[in-house]
């Protein structure tokens, strides 16, 4: 009643000119009149369309269901924080890199059940502003379902959830509701290496503290991670333009993040600009880039990239920006009337020091270099406190879940992934005792006989009436033998080391993440080995854990030797490939059909 009275008083203030005696109206007689009138008014006029009520009920239902997966993230010092979202029952959660940056390796996370959980950093993507953390203490966390952000359309309704202004002390997330304002938006880096590419623009309110929180579709699927807004001059609050990193981009990085690494984005090694006629053309290219080696030159017109047509510089950057470094993408370009299709491995966008060190702006090799960045909507919703809190001690119970190592956000998780992938390798058989020379002989697909000998002292190949040899003493350099193979003989040595010694055969050995095999195939797990300058990428089938092949690079900036295995020869419990296909520089060298495998004690000839 008091509320009604207050409402009426407010209403009366508005219509004051009409009212002669306000007090009279507030008196008892007037009340009676109003109440009677309310009762007399036709009921139909107050009835709400059932469709509206149904939509409302659905919205409330979805929001309350989703709220359980939303995380309020605090640094262990208790100052500052942001938001996040759980994506698996074992506690993996996504947030922004800029939320975790100041929070240390262990964080405190609040869920809508009112409980506070410990969490540990897993992997970070400083360029894409994404971090993966793991909440601890449960294996049945409520979690969100990843959607397909490419299905979003401008105008679609979305929920943003999180902890803006760190309002929620009971960790009940704040829900805002709005529409998709734009898709495939490109946001220039704003004073840091953060770059939002191919992102989702929303008018759903995004404020400081929302950082890292989920953007859900109206149906409740996770579509993105809210991380940025156009905050120009109205204070650091919502101005109608928020930006979310698309979940489809994050999916491409997910296994990379799970590897516990500091992951990097990519560049083509070429910059592009828009010509007068609207074509996107190369206006600069690094001589040492793979793109250059495959024939891309200044002035060439980019037709498509990553399977998407390119009609503007922003589009080019949008495509490039969603992929991790090292992925292979198809590129189609045109010079005069000649159309060339090629597959290129993307280069690292940053040096390792740039990712782990202080965030400084860097001239972008990814797109057209600009002397001065255009004034763009800048700024991201920062955690409410900018000051770096004092690093609190890790919780005793969980401190084994963090292992420090250069280049890694948390090496512990890389160790776990290495174990997972390598444990399935034992199915290939035990090669550890196979110390002598391995001799593989047979015919290539072209019908030429070959004989490959891999031993401790060297690798030899006789093929097409020629003999090739790679010495393996300490002083010998990896050779490109046979010429143009990218160093097949040395690659075979790497293969033998890997089978016989596993990670112990190399200086560095780690789990990278996953990528499509040869740019177009199924997703495979990727391990990296490093020995001297030689770097190999090992590819494993994700279902059975079979070794599908590897790429070996003798020296940086040279074409790799690409070795692919297929078929199976079972020999005393050891499994050998039936076919070894070798390619390099975009062409196939030979497909070696293995007919006999012999293992000899002693040295090779």
């Amino acid at each position, binding site marked *: 009643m008091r509320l009604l009275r207050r409402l009426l008083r407010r*209403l009366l203030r508005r219509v004051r000119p009409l009212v002669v005696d306000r007090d009279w109206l507030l008196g008892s007689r007037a009340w009676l009149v109003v109440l009677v009138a309310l009762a007399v008014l036709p009921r139909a006029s107050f*009835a*709400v369309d059932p469709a509206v009520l149904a939509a409302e009920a659905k919205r409330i239902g979805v929001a309350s269901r989703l709220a359980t997966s939303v995380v309020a993230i605090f640094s262990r010092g208790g100052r500052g924080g942001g938001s996040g979202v759980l994506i698996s029952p074992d506690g993996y959660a996504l947030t922004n890199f800029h939320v975790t940056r100041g929070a240390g390796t262990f964080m405190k996370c609040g869920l809508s059940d009112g409980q506070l959980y410990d969490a540990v950093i897993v992997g970070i993507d400083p360029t894409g502003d994404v971090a993966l953390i793991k909440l601890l203490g449960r294996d049945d966390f409520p979690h969100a379902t990843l959607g397909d952000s490419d299905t979003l359309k*401008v105008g679609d309704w979305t929920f943003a959830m999180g902890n803006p202004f760190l309002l929620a002390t009971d960790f009940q997330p704040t829900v805002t509701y709005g529409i998709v304002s*734009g898709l495939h*938006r490109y946001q220039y880096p704003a004073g840091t290496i953060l770059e939002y590419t191919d992102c989702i623009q929303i008018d759903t309110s995004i404020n400081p503290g929302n950082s890292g929180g989920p953007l859900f579709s109206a149906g409740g699927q996770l579509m993105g991670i809210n991380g940025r807004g156009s905050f120009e001059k109205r204070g650091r609050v919502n101005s*109608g333009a928020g930006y979310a990193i698309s979940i489809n981009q994050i999916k491409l990085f997910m296994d990379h993040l799970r590897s516990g690494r500091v992951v990097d984005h990519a560049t083509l090694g070429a910059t592009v600009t828009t010509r007068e006629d609207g074509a996107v053309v190369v206006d600069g290219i690094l001589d040492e880039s793979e793109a250059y080696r495959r024939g891309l030159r200044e002035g060439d017109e980019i037709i498509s990239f990553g399977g998407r047509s390119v009609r*503007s510089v922003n589009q080019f950057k949008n495509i490039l920006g969603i992929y991790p470094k090292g992925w292979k993408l198809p590129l189609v370009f045109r010079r005069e009337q000649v159309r060339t299709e090629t597959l290129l491995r993307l280069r690292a966008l940053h040096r390792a020091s740039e990712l782990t060190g202080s965030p400084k702006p860097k001239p972008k090799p990814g797109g057209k270099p600009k002397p001065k960045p255009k*004034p763009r909507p800048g700024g991201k919703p920062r955690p409410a406190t900018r000051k770096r809190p004092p690093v609190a001690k890790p919780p005793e119970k969980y401190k084994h879940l963090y292992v420090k190592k250069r280049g890694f956000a948390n090496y512990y998780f890389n160790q776990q992934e290495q174990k997972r992938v390598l444990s399935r390798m034992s199915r290939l058989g035990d090669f550890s005792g196979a110390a002598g020379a391995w001799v593989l002989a047979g015919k290539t697909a072209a019908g030429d006989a070959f004989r490959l000998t891999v031993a401790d002292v060297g690798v030899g190949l006789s093929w097409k009436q020629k003999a090739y040899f790679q010495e393996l003493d300490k002083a010998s350099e990896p050779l490109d033998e046979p010429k143009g193979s990218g160093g097949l003989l040395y690659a075979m040595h790497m293969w033998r080391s890997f089978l016989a010694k596993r990670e112990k055969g190399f200086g560095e050995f780690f789990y990278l993440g996953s990528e499509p095999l040869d740019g177009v195939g199924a997703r495979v797990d990727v391990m990296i080995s490093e020995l001297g300058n030689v770097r190999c990428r090992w590819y494993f089938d994700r279902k059975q854990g079979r070794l599908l092949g590897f790429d070996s690079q003798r020296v940086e900036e040279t074409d790799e030797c690409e070795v692919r295995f297929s078929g199976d020869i079972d020999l005393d419990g050891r499994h050998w490939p039936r076919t070894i296909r070798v390619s390099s520089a975009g062409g196939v060298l030979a497909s070696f059909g293995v007919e006999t495998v012999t293992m000899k004690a002693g040295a090779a000839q």
Partner: protein
Amino acid sequence: MTHRILTIVSLLLLSLTWCASIAEGQSIQPTIQRVQQRMVKVFGAGGIRRLHAYSTGFVVSRQGYVATVWSHVLDTEELTVVLADGRKIRAKVLGAEPQLDLAVLELQDKELDLPAWDLEADVSDAGPGTRVLGFSNMFRVATGDEMVSVLHGVVAAKAPLATRRGAFESSYEGTAFIVDAVTNNPGAGGGVLVTRAGRLLGMIGKELRNSETNTWVNYAVPISELKQPIQQIIAGKYRARQRDPDETNAVARFRPLEFGIVLVPDVLFRTPAFIDGVQPGSAAARAGLQPDDLILFINGDLVQSCRVFKQSLGRIDAGTVLKLTVRRGDKLLPVELPVPDTPEAPDTPETPKKPEKPATAGDTK
């Protein structure tokens, strides 16, 4: 009396329920697609300090006429319009009505046949509670063939902006749609406000900030106000509106030039009152004023902007002494200038380098 209040209450409740019920379950995607095809991105002057060099426009004729907001962005020979399909076309200002913050651009391509708004058939009016969509190139998020941004909101009021003049320093004084969405952002001026069915309601205006509370108002100028001027400008028949005589007199009593003061171009909503030039032999020159002096006080009152200075000057009395305080470097200097008995034109009326706004535009062609 009671009955009237009751009527208001019940009508309000009725309209709210009605609006909500028709809006739910209705897809806005066809509207968005249709509207976006009729929007353009305008690129022109600016890019220095915090002045954005971009705004929005909407196509009002198939032959390539674009209505947009009158602003500093248009103050250039190098005006470019980017169509929804990404085509870049040169444009020139065909005419403008500064009082409505309206300008009409003519695209420099004779072969155009563009999707356009029909200002007779596509327009509508709306009251409070109407759900609306705002379309604009705010923050220059979209380039090339990327579509302009869409915001959703509700008309909060249809009310005269003039009541907020002073606080908001708006040149438009008529009725405006006030919306609850953050429609009026940098570069959003010249965008459109439409109903969910895609009927054109108004043109999103410039950013307006309340200097007292540091709040911003989100509004659109009703298309009913703009329709006639747009059509007349295109037809080449438009005469700019006359200000009401009282105000004209008040403002025109004295002007800076009559003291020999040339101010910097008034391009910001609050351009600091810097002196751009001093005419030789003028009262200002005799008093020792110099270019780059910043006028801080006029007769003891704070001068916040060029506009405030001009308004204050318009109100001073003939035959008195004009007391100014200017800042030169880090010094504050008091300056006194005699105010002539009757306003008269200066001997050699030297036009400022850049006209701030053409007094009457629109009658070209």
